[in-house]
């Protein structure tokens, strides 16, 4: 909404909540740690709940809820359902919220009970553990801000669009786009198992900038040529299982789903 005051058009401060579920809290930390924007953020939105920054949250209606972390307990499941009910817009931030993260590496393989028992034995939990899943396994997500951690330019571009009531802009390009703009030699030319072409860009090609192959932490680039890229990597001497294992760590089952289908 736009209001006129002091001869200037200003937008009404949106009510915002920033919530951490199961994860390392690195994405919330990135927001706080972006010193050049954090005061601008606190001045331009009405932060109702952000426990990492202030221990006095007000839990009520929200314009935007930012959700970090996967949903891994019954308590978290109930909490995310409640937040969804009172938030007009819900944004999943970071790899754990978007794709499930490392903790959902084996989600859906029907061994959860067995793995749980092996690690914790026979104990009573304060809240029932669930097999870790991304936020969209439980509620509708309006926007995804992937990353491990999220990128400050992408995060603040989205936040400032939401403040101004504008539609955030998707970036459906592979890691290769930024990688080439960073003038890196393509690792595939040296037969290195890089999954940049299958991975959504936005990270600024953080790993290839240091000569390391992309492991998919931004999740799937939906337009990727999954079928042929797998064949190309196999021609480098990798087995399909080795490639799946590499992908499972970060991009998780969302990339695997595309690999299994051979594309969109």
């Amino acid at each position: 909404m736009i209001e006129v005051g002091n001869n200037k058009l200003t937008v009404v401060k949106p009510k915002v909540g920033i919530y951490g579920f199961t994860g390392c809290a690195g994405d919330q930390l990135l927001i706080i740690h972006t010193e050049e924007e954090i005061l601008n953020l606190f001045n331009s939105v009405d932060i109702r709940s952000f426990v990492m920054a202030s221990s006095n949250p007000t839990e009520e209606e929200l314009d935007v809820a930012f959700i970090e972390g996967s949903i891994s307990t019954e308590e978290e499941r109930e909490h995310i359902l409640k937040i969804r009910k009172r938030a007009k817009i819900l944004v999943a931030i970071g790899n754990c919220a978007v794709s499930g993260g490392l903790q959902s590496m084996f989600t859906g393989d029907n061994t959860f009970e067995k793995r749980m028992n092996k690690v914790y034995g026979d104990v009573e939990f304060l809240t029932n553990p669930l097999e870790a899943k991304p936020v969209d396994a439980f509620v509708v997500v309006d926007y995804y801000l992937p990353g491990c951690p999220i990128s400050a330019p992408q995060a603040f571009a989205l936040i400032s669009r939401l403040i101004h009531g504008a539609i955030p802009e998707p970036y459906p390009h592979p890691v290769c786009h930024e990688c080439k703009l960073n003038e890196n030699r393509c690792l595939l030319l040296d037969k290195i198992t890089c999954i940049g072409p299958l991975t959504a860009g936005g990270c600024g090609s953080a790993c290839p900038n240091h000569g390391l192959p992309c492991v998919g932490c931004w999740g799937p680039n939906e337009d990727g040529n999954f079928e042929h890229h797998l064949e190309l990597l196999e021609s480098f001497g990798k087995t399909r299982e080795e490639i799946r294992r590499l992908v499972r760590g970060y991009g998780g089952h969302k990339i695997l789903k595309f690999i299994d289908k051979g594309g969109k």
Partner: protein
Amino acid sequence: MRILKMQSKFLDVFLESLNKFGNLYGPTYKNKVLSYDRLANISDLVLTDEHPMIPIKKLFHPMKFTMLHFNEMGFTPDYSTIEKRVILGVHPCEIHSLLILDSVFMREPMDPYYAQLRQNSAIIGFSCLPTENSLCFSTDTDIVEEGFDLFFVNLGEYFLVWVGSSLGHDMIYEREEFFDKNVTHDDIQEYVEWRQKKNKMFKKSFEFDSMPDIMELSYESEIWEEFAKICLSCGQCSMVCPTCNCYSVTDVFDVTNEQIGRRDRNWDSCMYVDYSLVAGGHNFRASRGNRLKLWYGHKLKTFGKDYGRPGCVGCGRCVDSCPVDINVLTISEALTTKEVPEK
């Protein structure tokens, strides 16, 4: 056009003296990759037959820059990238690519960013010998007749220096003592031999002249689908092609409640899925095959209809760069022989 002679021993001193005309730019190594950049010292300049990975377009059509700043009252263009520059070590195919980009960006309505960068930059061309994937003999871009202020042909002991503009003339005038007006019959003979030697060094060639017709005849060819199966849509070809010039424009609001922000311009590629996406979710080129056909159409055919010649300048970067061997060579071969690479 005036042609002078300069002994090779004067080269570094002369090039360094050009900083009087603007900041020096040229190919230099960054993380072992050859890249056009600002030269801190003339010793950082790398004059070699290899091309920088990203072509010279990046100095005139920046990868990412802020076009303007806006508020509710209007906007102010941002011309902060514009400075006086002297760009050293520019190969003939690169000069040809700039002449092609001129016809895109400088026809009315002129792009003010490109035009000002162009008007404030001197081009100091340098000859090169063909490398593994050079195709400029096929595309007729191995020699330049315009588009430079000075052009140096390396004949070993000395350079023949073509003076291509009045600015180039001023540059020479400043250090006249380095230049010899007497080009002898022996020098001419040596130049002729150099060209003959160069012409024989090309390892690869393709039917550039017949490609517009072949492309037209092959519009419905199943070959495109074969390439579509292997294309990774990584977009590297667009980034490394000296005549790819597409960009996307995005508005970035400031993190504030006021209506202020900036408009950024970023390199884009027609290989990406959202390139031809329009309102209502319609996509003119959703399929990879159609995207490839558009790209190669520009390089080998339709660009010619709009701008006088097809876009390919034979630099060979697509041959160097594509991880699955889709390039002007394999495409033109496949369309003429039906042979698709297996990779």
